[in-house]
């Protein structure tokens, strides 16, 4: 790629930094850092939710999965949109009314006790980290594509450091504005790419469907194949539809609005934007499959780099690679589905278009990571440090210091994990994060808001079961252990989600918890009417 590419890239990153700097002066208190002073409007928050959600993983990952596997990739898009129905109906308004800064605040509202808060903070940290690794991997793919001479681990590290800088200075207000601007940019870029794809097919959808059908991409089972394929699909579907309701960085957004009505409207805005975005992204994916072809989706290596690569390649592959280089002027050493959208942009609009898409995707990732890091540092600094360790005695200044240190640590850990997981499709990684969120957070959150008898013990049991079982099953799944896998499915959702709900119910009936029951009236009134939310 050219210098123009890097310049455009720099401009994008720079703009986001300026916003961050502007907002830094305005988020000096913890209320500002976590909840943007509760002054964000419904429409603004809707764009910010959409911005948070249309992560680099959604854009790059879904486009890539659709390009490589067709329908199975589309299922991710469908699941991610419709999941908001659950958030809308069950969580948005109660959360806004009962919450303060973190998800643990809501779960601990009437269950009380340090242990509940500590476990809730632990699940928040785990989900966030998982989600974040996916973003870092995506960012690494992009930087690696833009700068040929960089090794992928170096690219991931650079991307990660840029992200850390944002969070350290920003806070929730900066994040909200970065999300809004980035959301608009991303929708714009995706529309542009969609128009170019449709232009290629003479604006004839039937022509496009025919081309897609030539590759059998509308058939289910390309990604989740084999005898257990349909069960794999069910497991993923369950994780996607329930998981959104357990994503800390999305749930936190409901604490930033001034009323339940604004919370509801923000989901409305988000569902409109996100739905359109995913429909467009599938067109982009199919465009990449039909116009570029998946064997060309990956880092393009040209000139001396390509010649050096071929010289060191497996002798059997050399004739093919040489032929590719002669024909295309580049080779693709390794397919990388995360690059479907930028590679398509390159094919349709040249290097500048590719640079634009890559820059948008990268700033997307930056913005999402900032939101994630705030959720993670909130869980640690607010729930564990301020409430548990300091017993609500520490100064606000100290809490902010801890929050920023946590952000730094979380950033480093995700860079390291991101380097280990490079090349894995990022939408797939995010799908796993959803399974962990759905299993560890959702049952406890939902039942603590709605079931009077629900107990402290049951919440802890359910959160720990969900967390341990989902992480454990991922650790022995085919993606990690390949042919030695003990658990046959790629996504643990179908086992871990029902199990976590069951544990929550059974544990509740084992022992009564009068104290938690006594506080239920207050929670119910507050969650449903907003009475007391501003006391």
């Amino acid at each position, binding site marked *: 790629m050219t210098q123009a590419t890097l310049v455009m890239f720099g401009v994008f990153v720079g703009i986001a930094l300026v916003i961050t700097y502007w907002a830094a002066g305005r988020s000096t208190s913890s209320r500002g850092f976590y909840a943007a002073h509760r002054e964000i409007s419904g429409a603004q928050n809707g764009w910010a939710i959409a911005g948070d959600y249309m992560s680099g993983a959604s854009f790059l990952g879904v486009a890539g999965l659709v390009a490589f596997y067709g*329908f199975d990739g*589309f*299922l991710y898009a*469908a*699941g991610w*949109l*419709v999941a*908001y*129905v*659950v958030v*809308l*109906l*069950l969580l948005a*308004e109660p959360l806004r009314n009962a919450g303060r800064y973190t998800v643990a605040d809501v779960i601990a509202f009437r269950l009380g006790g340090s242990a509940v808060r500590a476990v809730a903070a632990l699940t928040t940290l785990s989900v966030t980290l998982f989600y974040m690794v996916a973003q870092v991997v995506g960012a690494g793919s992009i930087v690696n594509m833009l700068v040929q001479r960089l090794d992928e681990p170096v690219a991931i590290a650079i991307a990660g450091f840029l992200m850390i800088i944002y969070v350290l200075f920003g806070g929730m207000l900066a994040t909200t504005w970065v999300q809004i601007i980035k959301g608009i940019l991303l929708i714009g870029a995706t529309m542009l790419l969609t128009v170019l794809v449709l232009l290629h097919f003479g604006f004839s959808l*039937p022509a496009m*469907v*025919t081309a*897609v*059908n030539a590759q059998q991409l*509308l*058939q*289910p*089972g390309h990604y989740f194949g084999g005898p257990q*394929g*349909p*069960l794999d*699909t*069910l497991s993923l*579907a*369950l994780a996607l*539809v329930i998981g959104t309701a357990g994503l800390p960085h999305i749930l936190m957004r409901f604490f930033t609005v001034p009323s*339940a*009505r604004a919370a*509801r*409207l923000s*989901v*409305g805005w988000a*569902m*409109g934007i996100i*739905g359109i975005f*995913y*429909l467009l992204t599938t067109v982009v994916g199919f465009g990449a499959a039909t116009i570029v072809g998946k064997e060309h989706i990956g880092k393009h290596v040209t000139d001396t780099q390509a010649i050096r690569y071929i010289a060191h390649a497996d002798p059997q592959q050399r004739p093919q690679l040489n032929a590719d280089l002669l024909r295309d002027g580049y080779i693709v050493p390794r397919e990388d589905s995360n690059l479907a959208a930028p590679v398509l942009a390159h094919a349709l609009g040249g290097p500048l278009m590719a640079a634009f898409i890559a820059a948008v995707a990268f700033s997307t990732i930056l913005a999402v990571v900032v939101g994630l890091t705030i959720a993670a540092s909130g869980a640690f600094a607010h729930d564990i440090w301020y409430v548990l360790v300091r017993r609500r005695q520490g100064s606000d200044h100290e809490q902010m210091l801890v929050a920023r240190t946590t952000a730094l640590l979380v950033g480093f850990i995700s860079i390291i994990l991101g380097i280990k997981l490079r090349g894995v499709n990022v939408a797939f990684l995010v799908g796993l994060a959803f399974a962990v969120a759905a299993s560890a957070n959702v049952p406890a959150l939902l039942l603590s808001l709605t079931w009077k008898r629900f107990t402290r013990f049951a919440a802890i049991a359910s959160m720990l079961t969900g967390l341990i079982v989902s992480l454990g099953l991922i650790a022995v799944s085919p993606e990690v252990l390949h042919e030695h896998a003990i658990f046959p499915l790629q996504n643990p959702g179908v086992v871990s989600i029902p199990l976590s709900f069951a544990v929550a119910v059974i544990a509740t009936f084992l022992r009564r918890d009068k104290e938690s029951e*006594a*506080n*239920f*009236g*207050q929670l*119910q*009134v507050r969650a*449903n*009417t*907003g*009475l*007391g939310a501003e*006391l």
Partner: protein
Amino acid sequence: MQHRHVTAREWDELAADPEFTALLRARRRFVIPATCIFLLVFLGLPAGLIAQPSLMSSTLPGGLTVAYAYGLSLFVVAWLLLALYLRAAKSFDDRAAAFVERAHAELSK
């Protein structure tokens, strides 16, 4: 207004207030069926892939497979439920606001 501490007993009285319980019931009458219908429709897609794989991968006139058309229809279902809920929730808001106003008046007595 000046805020004061609201005791647990007062919260319980508010929670047992007929106006509040009626609001809660009205909300549930919408939310519970809507959630159930939504989950059934959504999980129908993977269930269909398990139970009727050949039907789901058969092609409709126009070139889409049944599975893909089902997936697209989920977008419509989600937006439809959103519209229905936004309409229903307006009356919940009004009732909640009236309740909060009365509660404030009673608590500050």
